[in-house]
């Protein structure tokens, strides 16, 4: 009898022993100070997504991971560079702006303690020290005024807030879904798609709309319209506008069902707005679909000298079952000036990477792009002058949310 009792006690004691020796520390690799490249790794597992902002000095070899390192960020985040900071916008239930900057020790650190009223629909840099954020009520039922913020590009401090400008007239057809915002020559340009906020139907795809607001007083200036293409950009992709070296803007319109349109009534193509002007450049129109036999660009990045690095959908034609797919993408170099398209060699056809923004990095003539392949996510380096790509480092992540040099 006593033996059994003793055995039970011993068992319990053993259990306690096992328990107390457990912890979650995994072997952490040290981060290298002043490693120039910064990536936000979006890890999704078991229905949860968390971001880890890590740095590396080598994009072409080895594995980039967040094992025991990286700044953890919870809740949905968008990333954008401004000044010498990387803005991390998002959070759990609130939208706060956090700046990731390089500390005196050469390692990344997080700073900032500002909170936006709601969630930002647009965010862009206007000068070396200032960013502008735009907030739009979620739907017509919840509000009728826009909110513009100016934000310090270095500290992430909210400097001012302006709620004097109405959503009207950009909500006259349907509630606007903001697809891009850029500053040029004293104006803020905003592309959007009229979209039913309950059904996500896009019934108005015959016209490209660009709303112009003055900066810094954020007054409505003009609603530019052009019927050569449909609306600029696509839902949640921030792909409506690009800016060249001379502050001219290019509007990308794709009306792509796989990027969320419920219908497509115009060819995908590009329009130009010259610096600070409030008319489309009547002399410029690039009919992308006519040139490529029906293809539509999904994500675009201006590299320089009129060249754009793009992910182009290979689905042709796109049908209702492809809606929201963002898949089967190939990489191309698009020359906006000479209106040519060259396929990049060396990058497999792949699916969109999940982060809303196109996470890429340009350095000289090279574009680095993380691509989700059957073996995992790899960084591909493309020389835009030759359109040749080379596979580089592996990235241990589900997707890359942001990719910068700091």
């Amino acid at each position, binding site marked *: 009898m006593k033996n059994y009792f003793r055995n039970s006690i011993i068992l319990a004691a053993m259990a306690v022993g096992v328990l107390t020796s457990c912890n979650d520390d995994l072997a952490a690799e040290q981060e290298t100070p002043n490693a120039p490249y910064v990536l936000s790794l979006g890890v999704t597992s078991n229905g949860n997504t*968390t971001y880890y902002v890590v740095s590396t000095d080598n994009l072409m070899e080895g594995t980039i991971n967040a094992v025991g390192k990286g700044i*953890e960020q919870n809740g949905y985040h968008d990333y954008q560079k401004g000044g010498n900071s990387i803005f991390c916008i998002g959070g759990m239930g609130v939208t706060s702006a956090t700046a990731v900057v390089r500390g005196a020790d050469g390692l990344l650190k*997080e700073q900032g303690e500002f*909170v936006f009223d709601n969630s930002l629909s647009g965010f862009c840099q206007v000068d070396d020290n200032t960013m502008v954020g735009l907030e739009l009520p979620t739907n017509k039922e919840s509000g009728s005024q826009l909110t513009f913020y100016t934000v310090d590009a270095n500290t992430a401090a909210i400097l001012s807030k302006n709620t004097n400008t109405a959503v009207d007239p950009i909500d006259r057809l349907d509630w606007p879904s903001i697809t891009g915002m850029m500053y040029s020559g004293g104006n803020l340009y905003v592309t959007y798609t009229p979209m039913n906020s309950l059904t996500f139907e896009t019934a108005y795809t015959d016209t490209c709309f660009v709303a112009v607001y003055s900066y810094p007083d954020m007054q409505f200036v003009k609603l530019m319209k052009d019927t050569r293409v449909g609306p600029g950009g696509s839902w949640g992709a921030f792909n409506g506008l690009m800016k060249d070296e001379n502050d001219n803007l290019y509007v990308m319109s794709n009306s792509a069902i796989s990027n969320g349109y419920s219908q497509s009534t115009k060819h995908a193509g590009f329009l130009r707005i010259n610096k600070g002007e409030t008319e489309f450049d009547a002399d410029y129109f690039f009919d992308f679909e006519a040139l490529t036999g029906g293809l539509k660009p999904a994500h675009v990045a201006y590299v320089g000298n009129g060249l754009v690095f793009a992910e182009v959908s290979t689905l042709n034609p796109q049908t209702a079952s492809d809606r929201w*797919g963002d898949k089967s993408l190939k990489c191309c170099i698009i020359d906006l000036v000479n209106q040519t398209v060259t396929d990049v060699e060396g990058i497999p056809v792949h699916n*969109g990477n999940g982060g809303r923004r196109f996470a890429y990095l340009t350095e000289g003539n090279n574009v680095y792009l993380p691509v989700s392949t*059957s073996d995992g996510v790899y960084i591909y380096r493309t020389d835009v002058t030759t359109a040749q790509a080379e596979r580089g480092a592996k990235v241990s992540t589900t997707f890359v949310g942001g990719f910068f040099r700091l």
Partner: protein
Amino acid sequence: MRKINTTKMLCAVAGLAFCSQTLAQTDLHDSIDLHEVQIVGKTKARKMHEQAYAISVVDLATKYQSASALNQVLNTVTSIKIREDGGLGSNYSFAMNGFSGNQVKFFIDGIPMDNFGSSFNLANISANMADRIEVYKGVLPVYLGSDALGGAVNIVSRTNANYLDATYSVGSFNTHRAAVNGVYTSKGGFTLRANAFANYSDNNYKVYAPIVNLSTNKQEGEEWVRRFNDGYQSYGLKLEAGVVRKSWADYLLFGVIASADKRNVQTGATMDAVYGGVKNRSWSLIPSVRYKKNDLLLPGLSLSLYGTYSMVNTYNVDTLARRYNWYGDYVASTSAGEAYLTDATIRERQWQANANLSYIINDHHSLVLNNVFSANRRKSNDEMYPDDEMNNVPQQLTKNITGLGYQIRYNRWNANVFGKMYRLYSSTNKLMDQFTENQRWEKLSDRKQRYGYGAAATYYILPSLQAKVSFERAYRMPEAVEMFGDGLVQKANPDLKPESSNNLNAGLLYDQTFGAHRVQAEVNYIYRDTKDFILKGVTMSSNPTTSYDNIGKVQTRGIEASLGYAYKRNFHINGNLTYQNIKDKMKYQESQNTFVGDGISENITYGQRLPNIPYFFMNGHADYQFFNLGAKGNSLTLNYDIQYIHDYYLSFTGLGAKATKKVIPEQLSHNISVGYSLCDGRYSVVAECNNLTDAKLYDNYRLQKPGRSFNIKFRYYISK
């Protein structure tokens, strides 16, 4: 010969019960008890505990004086953690061995409580209405018919023929709780059973929260502030009337549950989001009927039935165009709805019916057959969005679960084997050919069927030492919304599989009395192999439409142990601990229709502990009673409770620099109370202090629970 007849008859009756799908109740354990009379001096709770199933039984008789809420009592059971968002009436989640939400099912007297609404819940019901709580870990007996993936909790009502138990407590944060429980039974067999409760709290406890300057949007550090929009009230009445001890019925009871609650919502996902005008309320009305007859037609055959119809309406309101901070200050906002603009009414209606037939073949063998049928209908309407096509479009779900069990019982050992059949029929309306001229609503439906099975066995190595082992292959069937989406933005996933799990328990139970000393000990090993969790796809990409998918594969290995010592009736001390190693065992992540399109990708968190689940916790309790103090029949009771929960990470355990990781901090809390009762417990008063050290306690990331609180409780109790 006689046996054959019996079997035939049983089949006939079983068939009848089946076809008519009349259904209800289940009291296998009652019939088992007939065989347990030789075990002298064991309480019902103890006897339940000695079943072959992995079960924890809380004998609530010891909790009546303090009139604790049931969720508080459950929180001290091994393997269980109740995670609260805040104070009285706040949202809570019940977690057991890594399972939570609708993977764990709740029953009251064997009747599933899934659709009883938010007002009639464990946090509102006081321990005084029940005799005991039975917690089944991973393996469910046949008579609890449900698709529980990870276990179940059954609340068993008090069965005293005549009693009245009234309690009232008042305490910190303007908290008042009252409960009246009673049963009247006449000599002629008429009985009336009533349980009533009322709870009220301002919940204006202090929290350490971030303060945002509303004009600059700057977060100006953290301060201690009072919660200002967190009031809660709930009321409920459970009434049953009928007859007992008739030749044709052991009982036939007609009942109704009526309850309502009203809640102000103070925070969003974390205390970073603070609300001043978000509110919700609900009401439930649930008529029921229960019937049971032992020795029906032939000795050893017993039949029980129940039927319920539940009507639950829930109202969620968030319409203010304001932004609040933690001081309670606000400014006008350009956007209405502090979290999400809504003024929604959700109407849920459910039929439930059960038939349970058991037959004791002889001293050693018995059979049980159980069938539960439930039909669910759900509609919602949001007044803020009158154009929403989804308003008032119904979704329906019918579940039919049949179980057949066989039990063999000898002196030193007994065993059960059982099989369960899960059938599901669900239908919804879907918008077809959306955005075309042919756009129309069409009815979609689907059927699913699964077979589960299991076994449980126990052996008495010594009269005081018992070994147990149990196993079940369990399923949870998808809900209508999970299968069909909402017909609009949530996409349907016709390939959705039920969640499935292999649950294994093995344990040793020891109970020995040495004169005035009694020692009880228990050690259990827990193994769970779970896959195909039904989770909502990730909604963060350039795709606002999602579907539910089968995601993940998780392995849980755990150990739970408890040790107790008692000296006469005067002194009790016990403690328990739970450690569960819940690991992500999914190597590759398959994605369909998600933002990364179709494909297979490596799962980055393979082999790591699942985040945001408490995995190591302990409870301790000690009490001392002075009997006949002051006068004969009066007693003084001193109680002490301690709870420890090890800290755990909010997000993936192996990723990220430690300094930046979000942690749910370690919890160590102490509760003490002193009670004095007169006239053998007829009158008693208890003074209680919870969270004695005023520790900052969090069950969820950045959602602070109340600090130190005091309350005083009065009780009046008579029984015949």
